[in-house]
């Protein structure tokens, strides 16, 4: 009923994703904002529309799709997995075999995107189903070890199956992001090179951005919807207490297997997209570090929540860029003796003097890459100790403050 957000006359109403008009309007405005980012006319976020930032955003969205996948497995179903990179790799190589043209050294079929992208997810899911029966027998840390094993098996395979992966340190070219009906020369829609759309000139990055945005919205809806279905609720009951769930009639092994399969599907698609975005990837890409990054995303964002996962992806992927910008700004400050020069002096290690971060090769401090690694670790620790619900938890706290107004409970 209008004006009575707490009165539900049907289960559909109670389960609704956007129960109030305020929420619907806010979401619509946010989507409009996202769509207009490449057009660079909303003040305050114009810088995001530059090509270099669009590249970062595209990567954020791919990571978000992958993170939504691990969130289903770890956040919803409670199965800690370090094997996400492996499934992404499976997806990526499925895509490359199906999508890239064949040559005398590599396998390839040159099929269009509407085949290789879904196939990347499906093959990854099938591998997930094959692996799952082993994985569902163990819990907690042991499961983490089992999935860790997957990553190493994967790395070994990827390095040696050169006719698929291009071989260690070399890699091969991924199919480009373009829509073709079949194998025609000119793609119907090209998502990766500069050109006009509806009379507006867009850069390749901007086109990729729109493509990724649509995919991300679809996967987000899927994820959000999954959480409120029977299957999603089964996952959550297993997470909260698997024995209790089984007693209540939730089939433990079956649902864990489902979680693995769905999660791997997301991972496979994300892997394929990552390959297509970057263009050429070495087999070492799908290593433990990538898996850890995904765990970091859901821990920092907020395990089990959709919005938190998206937020975490932005945070984790965009941080290196921000650190880079920051160090550059600080070193400029030091050089020109600006108002933040003292901070720069403290943090930046220049020739000889003490500092944490070094801008010169082989300097005394950490490199920017190392700083990023240290920062992830530091943030994971901080979040686990102080805000186990992640960035989403911060949001919940803010929301509750206003929800309780004018009381505190």
């Amino acid at each position, binding site marked *: 009923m209008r004006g009575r957000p707490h009165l539900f006359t049907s289960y559909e109403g109670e389960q609704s994703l956007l129960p109030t008009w305020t929420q619907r309007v806010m979401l619509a405005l946010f989507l409009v904002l996202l769509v207009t980012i490449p057009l660079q006319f909303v003040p305050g976020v114009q810088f995001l529309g530059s090509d270099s930032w669009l590249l970062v955003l595209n990567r954020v969205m791919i990571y978000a799709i992958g993170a939504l996948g691990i969130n289903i497995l770890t956040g919803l179903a409670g199965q800690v997995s370090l094997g996400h990179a492996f499934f992404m790799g499976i997806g990526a190589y499925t895509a490359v075999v199906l999508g890239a043209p064949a040559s005398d050294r590599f396998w390839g079929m040159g099929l269009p995107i509407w085949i290789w992208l879904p196939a990347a997810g499906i093959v990854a899911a099938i591998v997930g189903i094959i692996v799952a029966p082993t994985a569902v027998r163990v819990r907690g840390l042991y499961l983490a070890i089992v999935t860790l094993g997957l990553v190493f098996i994967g790395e070994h395979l990827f390095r040696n199956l050169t006719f698929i992966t291009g071989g260690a340190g070399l890699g091969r070219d991924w199919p480009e992001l373009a829509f073709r009906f079949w194998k025609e020369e000119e793609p119907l829609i090209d998502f990766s090179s500069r050109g006009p759309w509806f009379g507006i000139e867009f850069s390749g990055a901007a086109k990729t951005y729109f493509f990724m945005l649509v995919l991300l919205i679809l996967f987000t809806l899927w994820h959000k919807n999954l959480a409120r279905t029977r299957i999603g609720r089964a996952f959550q009951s297993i997470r909260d207490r698997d024995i209790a769930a089984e007693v209540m009639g939730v089939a433990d092994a079956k649902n864990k297997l489902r979680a693995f399969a769905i999660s791997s599907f997301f991972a496979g698609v994300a892997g394929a997209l990552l390959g297509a975005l970057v263009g050429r990837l070495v087999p070492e890409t799908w290593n433990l570090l990538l898996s850890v990054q995904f765990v970091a995303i859901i821990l920092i964002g907020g395990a089990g929540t959709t919005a938190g996962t998206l937020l975490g992806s932005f945070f984790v992927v965009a941080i290196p860029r921000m650190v880079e910008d920051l160090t550059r700004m600080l070193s400029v400050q030091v050089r020109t003796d600006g108002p933040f020069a003292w901070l720069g002096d403290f943090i930046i290690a220049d020739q000889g003097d003490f500092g944490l971060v070094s801008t010169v090769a082989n300097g005394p401090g950490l490199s920017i890459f190392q700083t990023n690694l240290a920062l992830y670790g530091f943030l994971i620790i901080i979040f686990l100790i102080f805000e186990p619900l992640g960035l989403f938890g911060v949001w919940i706290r803010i929301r509750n403050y206003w929800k309780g*107004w004018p009381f505190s409970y």
Partner: protein
Amino acid sequence: MSTDMLERSDAGEAGTGYPTVAARVREWAGKAPGQVCMREKDFGIWHEITWGQCWETILDAAHGLLALGVEPGDRVSIHSEDRPEWIVLDMATVAIRGITVGLYPTNPAPEVEYLLSDSGSVVHFAEDQEQVDKVLELPEGSLAHIRRILYVEDRGVRRYDNDRLLFWDDFLALGREHRERDPGAVERLMAEAEADDVMTLVYTSGTTGPPKGAMLTNANAEFSMRKIIETEGRLPDGAPPNPSDQILTYLPLCHVAERIFSTWTMVATGCVLNFAESIETVQTNLREVQPTLFFAVPRIWEKLHAGVIIKSRDATWMKRRLSSWGLKLAERIGDEVVANGGSHTTKSRILYALGYFFLFRPLRERVGLRYCRWAGSGAAPIAPEVLKFFMGLGVPVFELYGMTENAAVATLNFAGRMKLGTVGEPYPDIGFRIDEETGEIQTKHEGVFKGYWQKPEATAETFTEDGWLRTGDVGEWVDGTHVKIVDRIKHIIITSGGKNISPSEIENKLKTSPYIKEAVVIGDGRKYLTALIGIELDTVGDWALRKNLPYTTYRDLSEKPEVIELIQKIVDGVNEQFARVENIRKFRMIPKELDHEDGELTATQKVKRSALEDMFGELIESMY
């Protein structure tokens, strides 16, 4: 399916009969079959019942009663929390010219036995195992006049082996069978309905003697609906109650007040009834439903008031600051509005707009009165401060007065003409007078009841020689138009100094404090006044927690010196507002929470003074 059945059932042969409440439901079902008339919360979802469905169920139930052999004039008793079945059975009984008897869910077994045997009910509706047990645990052979006991919650009752038990769904099935055999039976009885038919027995709360069943007729109900619900100028915005109005049904339906403000308002105006899950969840349900019309007894108003005060004190620094500023503002608005007869003035509107967005709107939303356009308080005296508080928040609360015996038609504060501390003006064109000698309020109109069920002497005592109803309340005129209730005649205290004192006024002032739940002023024939005071466990517990005061039980908490000190301060504050003879010299804490089950309260939560004076005689004597 429902519409063609309606057409069939609408084909009454012998006219339509008197417009009983059941006939009014039929009218709504014909006019707006798809419109929602009731909502009941079940597993978190408010299930909706439309007029069409409601009337169909009523017909089934009425046929069911016929199948059980209920005849015109027979009593059907209902012992249940508020729920759609209550109303369905009530309407079904009225439709076949039977008499509904409501029992309070809190009635203990001995009282249930008394009420059932006094009314001689033939079909008894006991909601669940708890209420079924109250009847079944009585000795074999008692209440033999009850043919069937209907129950609707079958948990725990399913295993019972008793011929008299009948599950609600089976009862309706029985009704459907009967309906197929004899489709027009109920309609025929409805057409025979007369104005003088007794439709319900409403048992008085019985603070002094055993409860008496007041007989209300169809004409009484009709008069009550016309006067109270449909009277002009009741609602501040002028729009009469209509189908878009929401009502929260939570007070016992066997009480005349809830009957008027729920059932009868629904049938008269098409408002939607939303059934609260229980009395404990009223605050949550209020917030969900956000009723537009809301009637509450003083106890509920006091609780809402205390809730706001305590919660705003518990808030974080910023919020605390804001609400203390806002509540001060509300006080000024309250003064302004009250001085203007309950309507806004330009000044109060500006002040209200100042605090609306930051405090009043969210606060009203939290309390559940955001859309409330009329609220009433009645059934017991309320402290004016509480009314003013809600007026200041923008909730128009009006005190009104009536009693079972005159179908609650006596006085009402009209919007724009209210006077704080009075119960308002008599309804237009009713017989209303205040006896010059005794000060007793007397009424004479079509709403006055037919008499007490099988108690002719008691009935005779209630009427004066010239046929006016004695209300037993002492009143006085204020400015010649409004009426102020002094107290029950029986409660007036005459001290040994010969002073007449009304204890209710002092008690209500005490109860304004969020920490005091019960206050009983004593002093009849004594040198000075004393009081027994019972604390509100929630709020005093909260207070103690804040003071780092450990406690175990209610009694332990009551008797803490710090708590007594707290109460003493409140008593001192109240004493300042009264003349010296009316001051409370001493008080004692009641060592237990008063309870209906233990015979200290009536079913309507009124204190049984005599019982209390017996029970705590020593405590009282220790003060003199």
